[in-house]
């Protein structure tokens, strides 16, 4: 089971690498914001997988919870900025 989790984590890292293309080269701010929030969700899962690698999931859940609760604040703030700038 542990090997499976590590393999899943590596696969997710590959996907993050693909999303990173949009973050770095993506035309315009909007693509970057969307890709950045997508990376946030993948980070949440990778954190839990690292918890399984360390065999201490109950410690890593708290960090994941922080991302689940706070990740969208950045999105909303950036959206509000772009609305106000116009």
């Amino acid at each position: 089971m542990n090997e499976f989790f590590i393999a899943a984590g590596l696969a997710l890292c590959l996907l993050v690498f693909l999303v990173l293309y949009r973050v770095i080269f993506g035309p315009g701010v909007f693509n970057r914001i969307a890709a950045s929030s997508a990376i946030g969700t993948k980070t949440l899962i990778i954190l839990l997988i690292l918890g399984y690698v360390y065999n201490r999931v109950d410690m890593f859940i708290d960090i994941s919870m922080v991302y689940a609760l706070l990740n969208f604040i950045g999105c909303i703030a950036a959206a509000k900025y772009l609305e106000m700038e116009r």
Partner: protein
Amino acid sequence: MIVSSDDIIIKTIARIFVPFIQLYALYVIMHGHYSPGGGFQGGVILGASMALLLITHGYDEVKRRLPEGVVMLLGSVGVLIYAGIGLTCLLLGGNYLDYSQLSVILHVDPAHARSLGILGVELGVGFTVMAVMYSIFFDISTGGILPEDQKQEEKLESEG
């Protein structure tokens, strides 16, 4: 940045989220002993929840809950709690910040007294960090001018 958003969805979801974020922050402060977390992290999350309220619901809504004066008071009170606990230890005959002396007034064994002292200290740190984070965000997003002052200034300028 601090005017109220006119999007009903964002406002509603923020309204639902804010109490949970605040309770989670308090949980992080209180359970720093057993799981990752502590005063710094919890304070930052509390400040972030107030910032979320400020972005989505505007300044008036936040001012009703947490006026500017109270924020500054909390910031100073946090440092004072920290220093005060240290001073209490000094008055009880130990070293500065030696919490095992607190066992005299708390009626527990020294190890648990140190644990409780840690809890108090974390609480103070959390208050300070929350107040500072919130006030830094507030100042930067308004440019330091309170909205009512701005209105007043505009009125004065239009008069004279």
